[in-house]
Structures are given as C-alpha cells and as structure tokens.
C-alpha cells in the first residue's frame, strides 16, 4: 500500500516532468511535481514512523526491485522536503519561454525520480544504474544550461570524470556485496575478512568521492556552482547525501561487525573534509562555490558522526553508536534543508545582481527582504548556532566524538580527540566564513534598487521562507523525532525523552527552552532598549565619509586567518605597482588561495597520465611494417610467456 503511494508519487512527478515541456502548463507542471514530492515526503515519514518495510527486500539477483525501509524512508523525506521548495522556486526561476529552461526543468524532474529510485533500489543493478544516472543527469543539466562556456564544460567533464573514476569503488563494492550474498542478507562477513576489507575500502573510495569527501572532492566545488540554482540545491541538498546513504547501508547494515580501524578511517576522512572544506570556503569569493565548499565541510561532519558510530559499535556501545548514527542522519536532514535554502537564495541573488562575487553584492536584504531574512536564518543554521537545527546536529556529533574518546582505546580515542579538535575548528571557521557572507551579501548599503514585487519573486520568497521555517522548527523540536532516527540503526537502543535531548553522559539539551529564553530575552531587552534613540548618524570613521571604496572586502576580512594558516594553505599574491617619476600611480593586488589537493595531487597525476598516453599513442605510427611486426612480436611474447609458464 505505502509502496503503491511511492509509485504514485513518482508517477505524479513523472507526469509533471512531462508537462513542463509544454509552455502553457509550465507553472502548473511544477505544482504537480511539488505535489508528487509532498507525497514522497509523506511516504517517507510514514515509513520512518511506522518502521515497516514496504515493497521488495534487498536481493543479490540482477532483477530490478524496489522497496522502502526506514533508512530509505528517511532519505525520501530529505528528498521530498527539499524538492517541494526547489520545484516551487523553479517555477519562477526558470523561464517558460526558453526551450532550454523547459528541458532543464524536465531533466530535473528526472533527477528527482532517479534520486528516489536510487534510494529505493533493492538490487545491485538498479542501484548501480541509479548511481550512474545520478551523476549524468546533473552533468547534462549543467551542460545544457551553460555548455557554451568552455570552463563550464571543463567543470562538467571533471565532475563526470572524477566521480566516475571514484565510482569504480562503488561498482566493486556493490558487485562484491552481491557476489557474496551480503546484500540479500543471506550471509554475514567475518570481521576483518579480506572480502569485508575490500568492500569497505572500495565503498569508501567510491562513495566518498561522490559525497565530496577530501581528498576526492575536487569535482564538487566545480560542479555544484555551475548548475542552475534549483539544480544546485538538489545536488548539494540531496544528491551528495545518497552516497552517505549507501555508505550507511554498507558499513552499518551489511558489513557488520567491522574492525575498529574502519571507524578510524571514516573519522579521519570526516575530519579532513570538515576542516578542509570550511578552510577553502572561508577564502572563497564566489558565493555558490563557497556554498559548495561548505557542503564538503558538512559532508565531513556527517561522516564524523558515521565514523563515531562505527567506532562505538566496535566497542559494543550500541546506545551511543545509535545516537552517533542518528546525529549523522539528523545532520543530513539539516544540511539538506539549509544548504538548499542557501543555494536557492543564491539563485535569487544571482537573478537580482547578475553575479555572485561576494565582494560585489551588498545590501541585498533591502531589495530582497523575504529571501534575505531566510538566507540569514539559513546561514545561522549552517553556522551551528542555537536555537536552529544545525546546532542540534553539531552538538550531537560533538557528543558522539567525546564518547568515542571516552570508550575508545588509544588509537580510536586519540582519533576521536583529533576529530573533536577538527570539529571545534570547523564550527568556528564556519562562523567566520558565514558572518563574512552575511556581512558582504545581505548587509551594508543597498546597491541594487528594489524592484516591484512580482509574483515570481513571491514564489521564490515562499520557497526560501518555507525552508527557513523548517530550520527553526527542526531546531526547536529535535527530540520529537530523534528517537525515530536512533531506531533506524539496525540494533536496538533506548529511546530519549520527549522535548529534551536527555542523553546519557551529557548535560542534556533542551532546544525549546533554549529557544524560548533566547527569543523572549532578546525581545524584552530589545523593547527596553528602544525607548529612546538618537537620530541616525553616519558610521563613525574618524570623520571620514564611508564610501564603497572604504568597504571591507571578504579577503580583507579573512586576512588574519589567511596569514596564520599560511604555512598550510600557501596563499599566493601578486602586487603590481605602476610608478611614474618615482610616484606610485596605481597598485594592483591579486591574491589567491590555491586548492592544494588539486594543484599538488591531481594535476601532476593527470599530466603524467597524459604523457603516458602520448607515448602509448605512438603505437599507431602509421607504418604498415611496424604493424606487421606487432603480430610477430605478439606471437613471440605469448609463446615465451607460455614457455616460462606464465600462461
């Protein structure tokens, strides 16, 4: 029954995706699709709440099978809840007159269906098929949208290339899982058996690449910004969660029990990604790229939660392992909400300001009040501030890490502590990074004249506001559903009490109370404050007038951090001084924070590969004689190999 509703919702999205090609039905089609997504969410909520599986079970056979269980249901919720505002947003963001936009809209419907299909796939071949399409469809959307730009084509290629090469890991993992009957649940692997290790490592590579974990992340900051805003939102908000979903399936469901070092590896990956992502986000100047880098950071946080869960399971601490897993799942939900919110807002900003260089956007909250405030809330949530949702999941992750340290041995205890350091650095750096974003983008002098509010921007406002409200609500009532998340873990665990996250070994977290105190306190003090106010005066700047030339730039704001991190991130800068008659006429400054993994690891490898390829291509020399010689050579080599006993 519930499975039928799932199929129905996908069918509705499918129909909506078809209708979108008809110009007259463009807007209607999006509402049809949002309705489908709503159904999808309801299906997910129902499955998670009732803890009932529906449809097929996992199988090792190569027959397309679909089904839902609570874990899939959770990701369906994430998908649905992001898809609804994204679709509403698309209705005004995309242009019904442009054929290209209609095709993009159609493909994004396909994207949603594929994402749902991958989450619900119950056999190896559908899983792999969905996995591939999940890459290809956004890539094609990127190319359709901006394919005439050479750099975008290159981004698209790098995206496809790196995810595909990394995807080899997924292929191998899935095939091994099917081969050894693990997927169907028939067999259990022994702890530390070679097959288990092979599966774990290859899935970490394969799924880690797609999830954008460092150092396999290089595609992500290129691909996500290149797509149109709604698709970026889907990519960052939903798509990169799918590999985490698979990773949870593999590591938590299928390959248990795992040796401790798996947890250590996962924690390390998470810590590196979290810090690395946010450090590069801090110095990034293009808004969407910054958001993409911050996705890496958040994937890192999620991975930290997952790693903590693995490490804790290895020590038999099932309660805390369930909490850690639930923390990761909660952060997935939260991240998908605020990240899609931020991407959608960035899309609106782009429409208004025609660009996304954060130093050149200013005072957008004046011209886009609704979207601006939503963006503000989203940023607060992503910075992990109470009482918003990001704070809850980050708090839970930190708690899980502490407990890794508590229960772990020397190795995993230390890694747990290092992850804590990483997490602390990540949270503060994120705050640094996003205060910069708000300050530059929303606040300050209004630069873009306010346009008359049209119905289009109304839809954009509604969709972002919806997500912002979710950020607040989910931040206030996490305890209501956190117990359900804990029950997603395949082992049984104790439930937490309602309204307060009263977890063992913590000082408990009561978001409602925190929120109430913060909001009421602020309100009262604000009322007290504003009984008397002097006339507005210009900003005090030693008597100087504040002109836009005196504005702080993002790179200026982050300069102290850049100088301190210099030994690690190796920023480059170039100063060109134009002098005339001994007097400096003008100074040009160019600074950059190069992405070291890209320049020190990937480009040498690709250059080397290209060189080797050039050498191999000499085989095709064009000379008939040499071709004939290859035949003799082949026979000789084979015969000698046979004589030596190799063949």
């Amino acid at each position, binding site marked *: 029954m519930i499975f039928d509703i799932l199929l129905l919702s996908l069918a509705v999205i499918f129909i909506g995706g078809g209708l979108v090609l008809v110009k007259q039905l463009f807007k209607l089609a999006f509402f049809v699709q949002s309705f489908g997504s709503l159904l999808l969410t309801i299906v997910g909520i129902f499955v998670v709440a009732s803890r009932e599986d529906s449809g097929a079970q996992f199988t090792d056979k190569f027959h397309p099978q679909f089904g839902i269980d609570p874990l899939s249901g959770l990701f369906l919720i994430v998908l649905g809840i992001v898809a609804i505002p994204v679709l509403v947003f698309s209705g005004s963001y995309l242009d019904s007159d442009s054929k290209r936009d209609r095709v993009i809209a159609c493909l994004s419907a396909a994207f949603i269906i594929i994402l749902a299909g991958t989450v619900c796939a119950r056999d190896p071949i559908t899983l792999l098929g969905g996995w591939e399409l999940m890459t290809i469809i956004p890539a094609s959307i990127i190319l359709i949208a901006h394919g005439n730009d050479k750099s975008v084509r290159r981004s698209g290629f790098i995206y496809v290339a790196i995810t595909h090469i990394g995807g080899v890991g997924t292929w191998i993992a899935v095939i091994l899982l099917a081969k050894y009957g693990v997927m169907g649940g028939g067999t259990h692997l022994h702890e530390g058996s070679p097959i288990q290790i092979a599966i774990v490592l290859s899935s970490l590579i394969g799924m880690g690449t797609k999830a954008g974990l460092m150092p396999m992340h290089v595609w992500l900051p290129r691909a996500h910004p290149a797509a149109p805003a709604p698709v970026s939102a889907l990519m960052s908000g939903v798509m990169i969660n799918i590999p985490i979903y698979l990773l949870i399936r593999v590591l938590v469901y299928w390959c248990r029990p795992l040796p401790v070092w798996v947890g250590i590896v996962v924690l390390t990956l998470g810590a590196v990604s979290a810090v690395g992502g946010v450090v590069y986000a801090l110095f990034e100047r293009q808004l969407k790229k910054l958001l993409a880098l911050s996705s890496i950071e958040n994937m890192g946080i999620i991975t930290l939660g997952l790693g903590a869960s693995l490490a804790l399971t290895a020590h038999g601490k099932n309660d805390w392992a369930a909490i850690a897993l639930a923390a990761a799942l909660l952060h997935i939900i939260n991240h998908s909400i605020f990240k899609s919110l931020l991407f959608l807002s960035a899309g609106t900003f782009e429409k208004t300001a025609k660009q996304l260089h954060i130093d050149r956007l200013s005072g957008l909250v004046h011209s886009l009040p609704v979207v601006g405030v939503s963006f503000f809330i989203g940023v607060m949530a992503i910075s992990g501030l109470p009482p918003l949702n990001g704070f809850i999941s980050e708090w839970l992750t930190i708690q899980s890490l502490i407990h890794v340290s508590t229960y772990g041995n020397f190795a995993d205890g230390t890694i747990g502590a290092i992850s804590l350091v990483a997490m602390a650095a990540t949270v503060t750096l994120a705050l640094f990074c996003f205060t910069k974003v708000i300050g530059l983008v929303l606040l300050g002098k209004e630069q873009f004249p306010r346009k008359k509010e049209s119905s289009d921007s109304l839809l954009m406002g509604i969709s972002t506001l919806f997500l912002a409200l979710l950020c607040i609500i989910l931040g206030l009532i996490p305890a209501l559903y956190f117990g359900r998340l804990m029950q997603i873990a395949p082992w049984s665990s104790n439930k937490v009490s309602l309204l307060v996250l009263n977890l063992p070994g913590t*000082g408990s977290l009561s978001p409602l109370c925190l929120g109430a105190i913060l909001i009421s306190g602020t309100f009262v003090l604000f009322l007290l*404050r504003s009984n008397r106010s002097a006339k507005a005066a210009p900003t005090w700047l030693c008597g100087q007038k504040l002109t836009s030339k005196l504005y702080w730039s993002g790179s200026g704001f982050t300069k102290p951090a850049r100088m301190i991190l210099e030994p690690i991130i190796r920023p480059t800068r170039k100063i060109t001084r134009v002098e005339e008659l001994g007097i400096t006429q003008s100074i040009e400054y160019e600074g950059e924070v190069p992405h070291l993994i890209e320049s020190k690891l990937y480009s040498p490898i690709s250059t080397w590969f290209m060189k080797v390829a050039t050498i191999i291509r000499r085989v095709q020399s064009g000379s008939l004689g040499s071709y004939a010689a290859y035949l003799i050579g082949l026979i000789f080599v084979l015969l000698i190999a046979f004589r030596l006993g190799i063949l």
Partner: protein
Amino acid sequence: MHFTSITAGLVQLFGGLVASMLIPGFIQSLKAKLQGRVGPGSLQPYRDLRRLWNKSTVSVSNSTLTYRIAPSVVATSMGLAVLVVPVSSLGPNWGVGHDAFVLGGVLALSRLALVLAAWDTRNGFSLMAASRDLTISIFTETAMLISLSVAALVAGSTDMQVMISRISLFHVWSSPAPSLALAAFSLVVIAETGHQPVDNPDTHLELTMIHEGMTLEYAGRDLAMLQWSGGVKHWIMLVMLSEIFLPHFQNAYLQLLCLPLTVIAICIILAIVESTIVKMRLLNVPRFLGLGTILAFMGILALKVPS
C-alpha cells in the same frame, strides 16, 4: 539537599547577573594600585552602567535591524550562559541543563551578533576587530572545547555539574590530565575575557584593540548591555576555571564558599599578569592558544595511554 540547590541557584543568579560586573571593576582597580595610580574603584562599572542606561541609543544610517538587535542578543545569550554554567555540583537545572557544549553554542551566538553588527555598520575599525576576534576565536574555541573535553573524559560526562563533582575527587589529580586542562583553560580565560597579553581592555587605540573595537558604534543602553555582557563573560570564565579546572572541595557548600575566594585570587593573578606582561603581536596569539590546545590534547592522550 533542596536547600543546597536553592542556595546554589541564588549564588548562580546573583553572581552571574548582578555581581559579575565587580570582576572587571576589581581587576581595573587592582591594576591601578599595582601601577601606582589611584584609579577607579571596583564599583565603577556599575556607575558606568547607570550612566549609560539613561542615555539615548544611536542608530547608524543604512544599518538594519541586525545592528539594533545585536546588544540584546549578546546580553540574552550571556544571561543564558549564566544559567548553563553551574556554580557547584548541586544546583537547579533551570530547564537548560548544564552541558558544556551548549555553552559553546551560546557564546558563538553572542559572537555572531557582534560581528554582524560590525558588518552592518561597515565600520572599518569594528570590522578589523571582528576579523581579529574571529581569527583568535578559532583557537580559543578549540582550546576551550578540548580542555572541556578533558574534563568530560575525566568526569565521564559533559554535564558540568558532574564534572564539578568528579574532578573534586582527589584521585583524579593523580593523572596529569586535569592539570594540563587547567593550564589550557587558563590561557582560554585570558583570551576570552580579553586581557593581556591577548587583548588590552584599557585601550581605545583602534589598531590594538579587539573586543572594544566591536562596541565602537554603540552608545546608551546598547553599550550598557554590551558592557554588562563583558562582565558576565568574566564571571562565566572564572567560575568555570575555579569550579571545574582548579582543585576544589567535594561538598557543595564548601564549593560555594570558596568560589568568591578563588575568583578574587584569579582576579589578582590576572591583574598582575596584565601589569607585567606586554601585549603580544596579533599573529602570535594563535601560537599562544595553540599551546593551550596542545596541552589539553596531551591531557586526552594522558587519559588514553594504555597503562
């Protein structure tokens, strides 16, 4: 038991919300004495507050609600922090718990409010201070979180009340971990409360100040709230230092009794440090606090080394 709780609650509220302004005042007057000046008395901050409360606030042209609401947010979150940080191993819950990492979130919120207010006014000096504050906060917060983690590992919980009662046990101190955490947290206290050698609370020179810079645009009740918040922050940090990281009694009453003494002692030390040590270069601060992080981290290692 019940009575102890009420007493502790009263101390917590009174000390945090009312008496906390004494701490910066006391340090200032002590410093003046040490430097051979007459200086203001310990109650000077209260006089300032009264004066400011009666003045009108200033609004900056082109600024948004962010600027106007920031002091309220800062003050509220500091008030909340007072509720979160317990003064003894027993005490009321106030509905918000005593989790160490909740405190981290609350402090971050106040920091965000101030920084965004600086962005809102686009005041170059405020932004410079904000930028420095955030840079330093990367290291402060990390060091604070790690030293609190050491305490949590020793206590087996991140509940600060549990920490207080567990760390009061004598045998805990046989491991180097609590001492290392103490060293680390002392550095955090210096940085968080804005004292030398990290920051100079007395200066109004734009190029040297950090915390003062962000309050530059404010006046009247806004400034009053911010100054009050500064006092509360002192209180929070010193209470944590004395109750969690320093050796203390096991009995809740004795803890409460000793609290003022320890706080005064710490204030004296702070005043001496501030009078004798010069402010360090901004770029050296991370090293200073990095040292704290490393110390605390070694505390964790000390707990984890298989014996």
